[in-house]
């Protein structure tokens, strides 16, 4: 019964989105505010209905209602509760429902928190949001019904793919979708601005919190996916440049460009048309990602053609929204008046360069991802575009971005002084270069790129705060005044510094991979193997019996200079029913590095194949991503950005202006 009501709620939500798509636009056209304001209750009703449908599906999974096809195919009565819940989105139908739920959450959030916005903009934004929700609800109901029944219901389900029964993969899709789908709001804002033909600095301020939230979640989602790949696939690979990863990287690059260009638009009323374009582009790339992942086109062009209903439907949505918004853009954008002028050397100029490079990076990823598909469709020839291509093309573009980042941060708005800005980051640059040289000299004969990368990372981490320091620090200034200046700085300045430093932290981890140590060996119990600065001794190997598997468990002692540091217990499990073997790797974090041991086959003489890694600073790759996301959240807490509001700051606040010199204590 609950399942039927859930299904019904979904159909009702479709009807509500139809109202939400039409009434507000009609209302604003006729200057009928009452009609236009229908958008708000419609968006909230849509959210309530979709949330109910999602709750109903979750209920069916939790109580193992095997009359539902999706539950049969993805659940098992004995599956732990957390994976019963995660199983809701661990399949195509459920994940599309999650997609729509998050879309509805964002729509309802704009409806409830957007009171400070212009009525017309809010109504039109929600209408566009309604179009997207309509398209995807229709997609779910027609091609991917999560509530489809089957009779007679079996007594037991097929269980969830063991690979998906993992905490990482349980939270990865919601995080990623919050990012992907969050950019739909920015897209809707852009379309609404084009429809009304009015866009100004206030518009940039409205979109900023939504772009920041989405960007932060997307950052976390990508990092989570990469960490999952790292610990599951196991030999230190955390990024494979595979199309699914690229699908999430593209909106991230475009979204990062958008965050920067919208800053210019908000502060200086310039780059308006470009910012609107980026807003459209970012969500279009999210849609493209959804299409690539959901249509099966990636596994093979042929498998896509053999079951085309879903793929073609998403492709139609893709073409409709991307094509429609671009037509709207070409038609209406020339009507927007370009805004403020600026000199080439200025903060605006630096951000234009940032946008140029980020957009090219994004376009290269897009080309590399779609080129094999296009080539195969056109000529039938198959090629692979893998890591070596991206390292050669993407890499050289990232270097100038990294080098210019701290300089751009300390250059003045409108008309800047490049040399002055470069001077401000001099300390960071010298520190980075010095460290590079010291490392290169100390570790002669090691990898060349690693010391350079570490130096660059240190330059980024220090350089990202050099602007803050110059605004806070004064020679001979009392600490109280310093503190007052620090707390007086807008949170967005702190957010920028934190996020930029986060990228430096990630780079640190990437650079340090060059110093990683790998040992692949046949080891006997009691034998000691050198692994970087540590020694690994396998002390025990034993066969154990689990509930539905048998395993060979090992215990390894990690020691350094004769004293024990810690122990790791790697294992290798064999599931007789599924005929699969899973290696339970032992990972231990020491400082910021990790030791990673996985066991292979056991030999008759009692020895065992083992792969051992020492990965210095590897955790900083993901810690950096978390720091970046924290930067986004800090920036979000800036008082001028409190969701959708543009409030005037109280008078007399020290907003980064030079404070009158105070006598030293």
């Amino acid at each position, binding site marked *: 019964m609950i399942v039927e009501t859930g299904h019904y709620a979904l159909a009702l939500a479709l009807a509500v989105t139809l109202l939400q798509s039409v009434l507000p636009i009609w209302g604003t056209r006729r200057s009928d505010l009452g009609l236009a304001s229908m958008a708000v209750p419609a968006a909230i009703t849509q959210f309530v209905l979709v949330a109910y449908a999602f709750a109903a599906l979750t209920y069916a999974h939790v109580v193992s209602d095997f009359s539902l096809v999706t539950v049969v195919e993805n659940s098992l009565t004995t599956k732990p509760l957390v994976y019963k819940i995660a199983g809701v989105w661990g399949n195509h139908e459920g994940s599309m429902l999650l997609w729509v739920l998050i879309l509805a959450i964002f729509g309802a959030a704009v409806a409830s928190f957007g009171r400070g916005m212009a009525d017309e903009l809010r109504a039109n934004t929600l209408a566009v949001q309604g179009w997207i929700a309509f398209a995807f609800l229709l997609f779910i109901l027609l091609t991917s019904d999560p509530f489809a029944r089957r009779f007679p219901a079996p007594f037991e389900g097929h269980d969830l793919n*063991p*690979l998906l029964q*993992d*905490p*990482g993969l349980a*939270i990865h899709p919601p995080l990623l979708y919050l990012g992907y789908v969050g950019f739909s709001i920015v897209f809707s804002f852009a379309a609404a601005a084009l429809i009304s033909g009015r866009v100004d600095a206030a518009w940039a301020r409205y979109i900023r919190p939504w772009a920041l939230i989405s960007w932060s979640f997307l950052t*976390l989602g990508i990092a*989570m996916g990469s*960490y999952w790949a790292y*610990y*599951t*696939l*196991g*030999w230190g*690979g955390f990024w*494979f440049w*595979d*199309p699914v990863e690229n699908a999430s990287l593209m909106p991230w690059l475009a979204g990062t460009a958008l965050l920067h260009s919208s800053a210019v638009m908000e502060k200086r009323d310039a780059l308006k048309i470009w910012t609107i374009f980026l807003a459209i582009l970012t969500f279009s790339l999210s849609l493209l990602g959804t299409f690539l992942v959901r249509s099966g086109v*990636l596994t093979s062009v042929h498998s896509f053609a053999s079951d085309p209903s879903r793929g073609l439907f998403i492709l139609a949505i893709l073409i409709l929204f991307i094509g429609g918004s671009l037509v709207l853009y070409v038609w209406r954008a020339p009507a927007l008046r370009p805004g403020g*002028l600026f000199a*080439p050397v200025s903060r605006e100029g630096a951000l*234009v360069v940032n946008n*140029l490079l980020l*957009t*090219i990076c994004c*376009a*290269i990823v897009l*080309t*590399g991802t779609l*080129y094999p598909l296009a*080539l195969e469709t056109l*000529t039938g*020839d*198959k*090629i*692979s*575009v*893998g*890591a*070596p*291509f991206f390292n*050669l*093309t993407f890499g050289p*573009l990232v270097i100038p971005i990294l080098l210019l980042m701290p300089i751009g941060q300390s250059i003045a708005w409108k008309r800047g002084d490049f040399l002055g800005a470069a001077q401000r980051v001099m300390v960071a640059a010298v520190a980075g270069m010095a460290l590079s040289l010291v490392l290169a000299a100390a570790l002669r004969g090691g990898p060349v790129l690693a010391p350079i990368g570490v130096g660059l990372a240190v330059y980024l981490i220090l350089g990202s705060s050099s602007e803050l320091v110059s605004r806070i620090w004064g020679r001979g200034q009392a600490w109280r005044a310093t503190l007052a200046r620090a707390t007086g700085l807008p949170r967005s300045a702190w957010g920028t510094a934190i996020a930029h430093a986060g990228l430096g932290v990630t780079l640190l981890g990437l650079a340090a991979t060059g110093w990683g140590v790998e040992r*692949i*060996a*046949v080891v006997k119990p009691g034998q000691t193997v050198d692994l970087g600065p540590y020694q690994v001794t396998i002390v025990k190997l034993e066969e154990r019996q689990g509930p539905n598997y048998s395993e060979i468990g090992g215990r390894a002692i990690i020691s350094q200079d004769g004293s024990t540091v810690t122990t790791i217990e790697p294992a290798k499990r064999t599931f007789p029913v599924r005929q699969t073997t*899973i*290696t*339970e*790797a032992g*990972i*231990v974090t020491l400082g910021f590095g990790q030791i990673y041991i*996985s066991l*292979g*086959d056991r030999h008759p003489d009692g020895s065992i*194949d083992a*792969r051992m890694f020492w990965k210095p600073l590897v955790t900083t790759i993901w810690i950096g991503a*978390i720091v970046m996301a924290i930067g986004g*959240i800090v920036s979000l807490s800036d008082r001028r950005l409190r969701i959708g509001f543009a409030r005037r700051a109280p008078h007399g606040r020290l907003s980064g202006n030079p404070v009158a010199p105070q006598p030293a204590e």
Partner: protein
Amino acid sequence: MTALRRFFILLVVFAGFAPNLASAVQPDEILGDSKLEARARRISVGLRCLVCQNESIDDSNAELARDLRLLVRERLKAGDSDTQVRDFLVRRYGNFILLKPPFDWETALLWGSPALLFAAGAIPLLLGLRRRRQSPPPDPLSPAECDRLASVLNGDIPSE
């Protein structure tokens, strides 16, 4: 914020007991000659495991990847150069096996794309810059405007 912290704790906690399917290069595959083995590893990194998503045979634990790794080592032991090994595999499996696509007429656009994209972005930007530099400076203020400006600056009338 708490959600974020919980996420972080989760991340740290689960790092400890994560399942893993790794095997990739196994000890019995490794060649006795360390120079030859290093070459084999270097070649393997650039070869796609044909049944995987953009994963190299050096990384993949698929059965096919193991066969290919052994094949690479066999060819090297037989005295092939790195290029000969790659050519041998391309003859067998096509360009699909190379993670770095070769430059030919089919991939010219792919390899040319970074330069083309850069030109497409940078040239309009530079032209715009030049046009702006060459555009005449704005007209000077008319006497009436000067008077109005002066009175605004003197505080006689509010600016807006």
